[in-house]
């Protein structure tokens, strides 16, 4: 099973909104409501910021929001802040034997 497809990079100015897409198939993103998003700063481990498409773990600001339509999930960062500059990865459940299928990753730059 191939990695989910994300844009390589997205750029925004402080205060703006950016949206990252995550395209899969009807065997993963399109089939399950189990899409999560992870934020990774350089040299750090990933951090869960969205799960089950649109839920927030405790402590994650609601500037981050998730959605899904068909085989594509999306992460929107509203009110972009300098500390949001990082790599973002989507991840979908794809069944019992492939419980985690990651996306290709998107670098968010804040100009």
């Amino acid at each position: 099973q191939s990695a989910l497809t994300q844009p390589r990079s997205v750029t925004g100015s402080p205060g703006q909104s950016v949206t990252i897409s995550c395209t899969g198939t009807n065997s993963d993103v399109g089939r399950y409501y189990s899409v999560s998003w992870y934020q990774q700063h350089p040299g750090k481990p990933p951090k869960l910021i969205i799960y089950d498409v649109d839920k927030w773990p405790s402590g994650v600001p609601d500037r981050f929001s998730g959605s899904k339509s068909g085989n594509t999930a999306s992460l929107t960062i509203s009110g972009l802040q300098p500390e949001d500059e990082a790599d973002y990865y989507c991840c979908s459940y794809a069944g019992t034997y492939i419980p985690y299928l990651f996306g290709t990753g998107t670098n968010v730059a804040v100009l």
Partner: protein
Amino acid sequence: VQLEQSGAEVRKPGESLKISCTNSGYGSNNYWLGWVRQMPGKGLEWVALISLAGSESRISPSFQGRVTISVDQSTNTAYLQWSSLQASDTAMYYCARRPSITASPFDYWGHGSLVTVSS
């Protein structure tokens, strides 16, 4: 929540290696532990997953035959093992915790174990 991973390792091609991850804290056996590979400058790839409460495990088809995952239930420790390393195994290996509910996300991550394979 603490996920304690073993330290950086340097090995030669063909050598074996076993890295570890311990989940400590209350109720720490009610989880699964997974391994995620990140090659230098690249993205995240799921490697394997194992239950801390039993022997149930999963290995990604991409890594099947290359790695072995095991668990010591008495210490809530998961292990990832190679019998014959290759240079292409050079990567950071993150341990991550998943609640014992199907399709749960990885909610906490360790700081990573850097594996370098070089002659």
